[in-house]
Structures are given as structure tokens and as C-alpha cells.
């Protein structure tokens, strides 16, 4: 095991951990988006989906997946902070003239900032939904999970914050997806243009998909 863990202390190993956890989190986002889409099918459909995950025998698998998910986030965040800190230290004296290379993207140079906004969003998101679903006092009034979602999305401040956070998710994935392939050593004349294009599509579908829910419930939802 020693050789395996040691691998992740090399700079290339740290990047590998970043890429693998990143792919895992993208996979999670895809499943999450699929789950959220039940919101469009109405109260019963969404509540049944939440019930199906949490109150059938599936719950045991879900608990295990939740632990892996928390670890995935934890390693991605810890590794990202570690890389960012080392990268800062590698240039103690900054340049006076800061010329941005026209060939590098804004997203690639500012991953830590998009990450920070996504992290703040994640904390608030867990408080508003995960915590409310499980321990929220609103449940005592007979409100269902669906009602919690609708009520939360009808708050204009939260709606705007959610949409802005999704813009930063887009920027994060815009670089992250194709960068992870490069880190894995996959840079190929035939496939890289497709990977870059597909990464942008994934980034757009995920961020626009998630952002569509608060927009829908704020502007277009007429109650039932």
C-alpha cells in the first residue's frame, strides 16, 4: 500500500487525485440532475422519488454512496487547496506587469475562485435542502420535500444566488472536464477536440439544468 499512497504525494499524483475525484463528482452531478428533474413531474413524482431513495431498502446503498460522495468532495477540496497553496508558494515575488496570455482561458487561471463560490453554495445548499429534508421544523407543519423546494426557490435572493453559483459551476467544469483528461494523459489529435467540445456541453447541460429549477419555480410556477 505504501507505493500506492506515495504516488499521490508527487505533483502528478496530486493532479491525478484531482482528476479522478473531479470525474466522480461530475458523475454525481449527472445523477443529481436526473433526480431533480422529477420536480417537473409534480409534487407526487418528486416526493415518491425522495421516498424511494430514503425509505425503501435502497437506503442502505444510498448511505454507503453518501459516504463515498462526502469523501469525494473532501479529497477534491483538500487536494485543490493543497495544490493552490503550493502553486502560490512557487512564485513568492509576483510580476509587476500582469499580462494575461491570450491563449489561456479565464476559467483555467481562476479555478480556485470558481471553486470557492461553489463551496459556499454547497454549504448553503446542504443547509437548505439536505438538512431541511431530514431535520427541518417545517416538516411538522405537514409540508413535503417538494413544498420545501418550491418555497426555497421562491425566495428571490436565493434564486439569484443559485443561478449565479451555477454560472461559476459552468466555468469550473468548462476547464475541469478537459483538464482532467489532459491530467490522465489523454491528449490525442483525434479525440481531444471532441473532449473539449463535449466538456463544454456537459458544463452547460449541468449548470443550465440545475439553474432551470429556481428559474422555473420563481417565474413560471403557478402553484398547484
Amino acid at each position: 500500500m505504501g507505493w500506492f499512497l506515495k504516488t499521490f504525494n508527487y505533483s502528478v499524483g496530486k493532479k491525478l487525485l484531482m482528476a479522478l475525484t473531479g470525474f466522480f463528482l461530475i458523475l454525481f452531478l449527472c445523477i443529481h440532475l436526473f433526480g431533480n428533474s422529477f420536480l417537473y413531474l409534480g409534487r407526487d413524482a418528486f416526493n415518491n422519488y425522495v421516498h424511494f431513495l430514503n425509505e425503501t431498502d435502497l437506503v442502505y446503498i444510498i448511505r454507503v454512496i453518501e459516504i463515498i460522495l462526502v469523501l469525494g468532495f473532501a479529497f477534491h477540496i483538500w487536494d485543490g487547496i493543497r495544490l493552490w497553496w503550493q502553486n502560490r508558494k512557487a512564485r513568492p515575488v509576483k510580476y509587476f506587469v500582469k499580462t494575461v496570455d491570450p491563449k489561456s482561458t479565464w476559467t483555467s487561471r481562476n479555478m480556485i475562485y470558481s471553486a470557492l463560490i461553489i463551496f459556499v453554495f454547497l454549504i448553503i445548499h446542504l443547509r437548505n435542502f439536505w438538512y431541511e429534508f431530514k431535520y427541518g421544523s417545517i416538516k411538522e407543519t405537514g409540508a413535503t420535500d417538494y413544498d420545501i423546494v418550491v418555497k426555497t426557490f421562491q425566495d428571490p435572493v436565493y434564486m439569484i444566488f443559485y443561478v449565479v453559483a451555477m454560472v461559476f459551476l459552468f466555468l469550473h467544469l468548462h476547464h475541469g472536464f478537459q483538464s482532467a483528461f489532459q491530467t490522465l494523459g489523454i491528449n490525442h489529435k483525434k479525440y481531444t477536440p471532441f473532449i473539449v467540445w463535449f466538456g463544454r456541453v456537459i458544463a452547460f447541460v449541468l449548470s443550465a439544468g440545475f439553474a432551470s429549477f429556481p428559474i422555473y419555480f420563481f417565474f413560471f410556477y403557478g402553484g398547484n
Partner: protein
Amino acid sequence: MSSKKLNLTLKVWRQAGPNEKGEFKTYYANNISTEASFLEMLDIVNEELEARGEDPIAYEHDCREGICGTCGMVINGRPHGPLQGITTCQLHMRHFKDGDVIYIEPFRAKAFPVIKDLVVDRSAFDKIIQAGGFISVNTGSAPEANSIPVKKENAELAMDAAACIGCGACVAACPNASAMLFVSAKVSHLALLPQGLPEREIRVQKMVAKMDELGFGNCSNVGACEAECPKEIKITNIARLNREFYRARFLSNVEE
């Protein structure tokens, strides 16, 4: 094209020694021919400084034809100046306009400490090469070139990677001061050729470990290195370095 004369304002980083505090000083370069090279322009300024009894601006140079990689400096925020695919010595004053203000700074990286003014210590690159950037061959007369066949595609990829002159512009350009483009070029040109295979697994691990130890940053796939490289080394080499690293760590028994 007829030559014109330029009057320029230079803001040059002056630092007396490695542990001294540095600052920008302003110099005026007057009557500079557009046919002069950038380094010749600095030479003219230095002659005037010496004539006035002042300390000339220290900068490194050697071949002045773009193959030694010595003349690294950051000109208006760009390593080797604003043009692509050239070193500082290949930059000519015709690319500047009369009245321009030019900021000249040394390469900035923890692993490249400033020795004086624009001169930085790049022996960190030598240490990386010493860690593994070599092959083992018998001494004596040169071996027959064509006794080991190499396929043309690999020969060309190896040659492209071997074009790296170790100038350090990749480190200077990288927002993380990472040396990955340099290391990847050196790993690639040996990994692509049969002569490099005996040390293939140990080389990549030792060179990456040495790069990390010397305080270079981590690659975040920004691509600024590729854009600033005077020899236009491609970041496909970094992907190859990553592959070589995983191959050595996960598929071989060779431990660094």
C-alpha cells in the same frame, strides 16, 4: 524597410544581490535603431551607464541566435517579449514604437532565485536533468546511427521535444511557476526513442520528484507555457509525461 530611431523609456528591475531588496529604475534609451536587437538596445543603455560610472544592468546572454536559452527576461509581462516562438535575443526593436514604456523584469519563481538584476539562477533545471535526464551508453566511438530502427513519427516527436533549450520561459509564464513543460520535453524525447528505454521507468519518477523538491508549482493545464515557449514545445508532451508517470508507478516494479 528603412531604419528609424526610437526613444524609449525603460523600467528595469534592479537588484544588487540575491538577498538585496530590488526595485524598478527608470532609464531612457534614446536614438535606438529599429534594426537593433533587444539585447543590443540594452548594450547601448549599459554603455551609457558605464560612461556615467553607474552599474550596468546585469542580464544573461550567450549565443544570441536563439539556441542557447540563456537570455531569459520578462518584457512587458511576457517571457522573451511579445512575439511568439523566439528568444529575447531574436527580438528586434522594430516591434516597438517610438515613445514606448518597456518594463523589464527577471523570471519570477521560487526555484529561480534572482542573482542580480535580470539574472536568475536556473541550476534547478540542471538538477532535474541530473536526476534522470540521461541515458547510459558505452564510451568510445559513436555508435552506428541506423543500427536501431526508429519509426519516423517517433523520431519527429522526439526531435520536437528535444528542441527544448531549457530557457525557463515555461516556468516564467506559468501562473503556478511549474516546470512541467520542461520536464515533459526532457522525459518525452528519451521515452520516445529505443535508447531511452532502459531507464524509462526510473527516469520519470526521479525527474518529477526532483522537480517537486525544488519548489516548482503544479501543472494546472492552463497552457501559458506552450504559448510562450520559444521552441513551441507542445503540452501534448505534458500528457505524455503523465502517461509515463502512471505507467512507471502503476505498471512497473521500479520504485524511485
